[in-house]
């Protein structure tokens, strides 16, 4: 089940999108996510659609693979749509089984917008994680936050925590599997009973898992100190980042397309 989540995974490749400087990619994703909420009209979303599919195509990732990332959010999207359809005041479109709960025309419009926004948000941001390795992402983030160190943002520490967290996800998953098996062998039952019973049955998994995680953290800290770790001060990096001319050009083009998507909405076309 956990393996099906494409959100936040890395899809190895060597496309222009993969090779783009992670700093620019992060900035563009932030721009994309923000502008999504300023787009009015379906034409604007049409432009975003073409742009998103274009980038995914350029990255060489199969579109269905990216769309699968929406699956875990299916419930959230349906719920948002329902709330919008029935809770927005306006002209009544239809009533639900002759109850006072009414769907409005405005609500339906709103719901379509929200569904589009959420879907593009998830798909668009997953393009970032799909095309950048965790190392590139954390590195990019550290460097982007670098200037904010002066006002006390612990840029290096944030990046370090992120990369250690990513590093230990598979290790802890493996450990969880082991604990589940061990507890099952002792007769633990995780499959029957109502939701509260099942939640309670998780305790014998979570307690050893947390104990193990703390022990690991202890040992890791020791190993890091033994390798002269002393925070971000005077640290150098094996991989240097280079922003190339083509990086800047493609970022500029992307920004222009996104700006166009917003503008067509405001121009009142459709």
């Amino acid at each position, binding site marked *: 089940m956990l393996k099906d989540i494409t959100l936040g995974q890395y899809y190895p490749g060597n496309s222009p999108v993969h090779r783009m400087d992670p700093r620019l990619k992060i900035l563009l994703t932030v721009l994309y996510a923000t502008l999504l909420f300023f787009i009015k009209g379906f034409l604007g979303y049409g432009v975003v659609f073409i742009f998103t599919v274009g980038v995914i195509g350029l990255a060489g990732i199969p579109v269905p693979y990216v769309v699968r990332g929406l699956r875990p959010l299916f419930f959230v999207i349906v719920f948002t749509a329902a709330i919008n359809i029935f809770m927005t005041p306006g002209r009544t479109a239809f009533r639900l089984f002759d109850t006072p709960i009414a769907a409005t025309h405005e609500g339906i419009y709103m719901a379509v917008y929200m569904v589009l926004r959420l879907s593009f948000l998830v798909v668009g941001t997953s393009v970032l994680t799909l095309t950048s390795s965790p*190392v590139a992402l954390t590195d990019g983030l550290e460097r982007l936050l670098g200037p904010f160190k002066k006002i006390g943002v612990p840029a290096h520490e944030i990046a370090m925590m992120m*990369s250690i967290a990513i590093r230990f996800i598979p290790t802890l998953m493996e450990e969880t599997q082991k604990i589940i098996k061990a507890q099952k062998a002792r007769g633990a039952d995780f499959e029957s009973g109502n939701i509260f019973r099942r939640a309670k049955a998780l305790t014998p998994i979570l307690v050893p898992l947390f104990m193990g995680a703390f022990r*690991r953290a202890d040992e890791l800290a*020791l*190993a890091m100190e033994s*390798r*002269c770790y002393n925070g971000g001060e005077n*640290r150098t990096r*094996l991989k240097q980042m280079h922003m190339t001319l083509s990086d800047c050009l493609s970022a500029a083009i992307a920004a222009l397309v996104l700006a166009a998507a917003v503008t067509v909405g405001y121009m009142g076309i459709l």
Partner: protein
Amino acid sequence: MIQVENLTYRYPKGDDHAQTYVLDGIDIKIQPGEFVAVVGHNGSGKSTLAKHFNGILLPAGGKVYIDSLDTADRALLFEIRRRVGMVFQNPDNQIVATIVEEDVAFAPENLGVAPEEIRRRVDWALKAVGMYDKRMHAPHLLSGGQKQRVAIAGVLAMTPAYIVLDEPTAMLDPVGRREVLDTVLKLNRQEHMTVILITHFMEEAALADRVLVMQDGRICMQGTPKEVFVQARALKSMGLDVPQTIELMYALKAAGLNVALDTVTAEECAEEIMKLI
């Protein structure tokens, strides 16, 4: 040279071990290029001793000098840790990065080494442990032995003079154990690295130039593997094993055959048996 002079250590008060000394007057000299094995059963203080070599623990009494640098001097801490690389038991808990070569680069990055020099060291270290082909792999996809070799490479990238390995094979399968030992031997023989191997496998200790046997925070026996293992009875009374080769000779002797008892390697053992036939 590593010099340990009358080292004592006990865990801070309030702990279970408040009253007993974990280390109780230890004197050691380790020469450059030596391969020293430290053996002892659980709780003999061998891991505590290992943690003194790079200043993770500081002596409660006595001194530890690394190339005449005092480990108790805070200002020298990073230089000492650079010179004494430390490899721990659990390979999973000492790998920091999500890509092998990034992990090997971790220590030189911390030391502020220039990027081109880091590249050179990473490539060299990975080749030295035979993991260069896997440099772009994710560590969690490697076997235990491979992970431990990456951990060794991560330490080598600091260009240390000494490597301390604290039971590096305890969590590995026989294949992984072999890989790690071969790597350690190669580093000692070819790169002239000084190796201190903490272990409870006597077959591993038998490969060393010198074996130190610890009990109750003291060094109670030391010498070449031959000199130490020939005292099989004393070792057994301390709850320690002897290599199977020695075990066999004792069994043959007990059966009334006239054999030498100091056959540490399988070859020596075979020769001794050939003499009988």
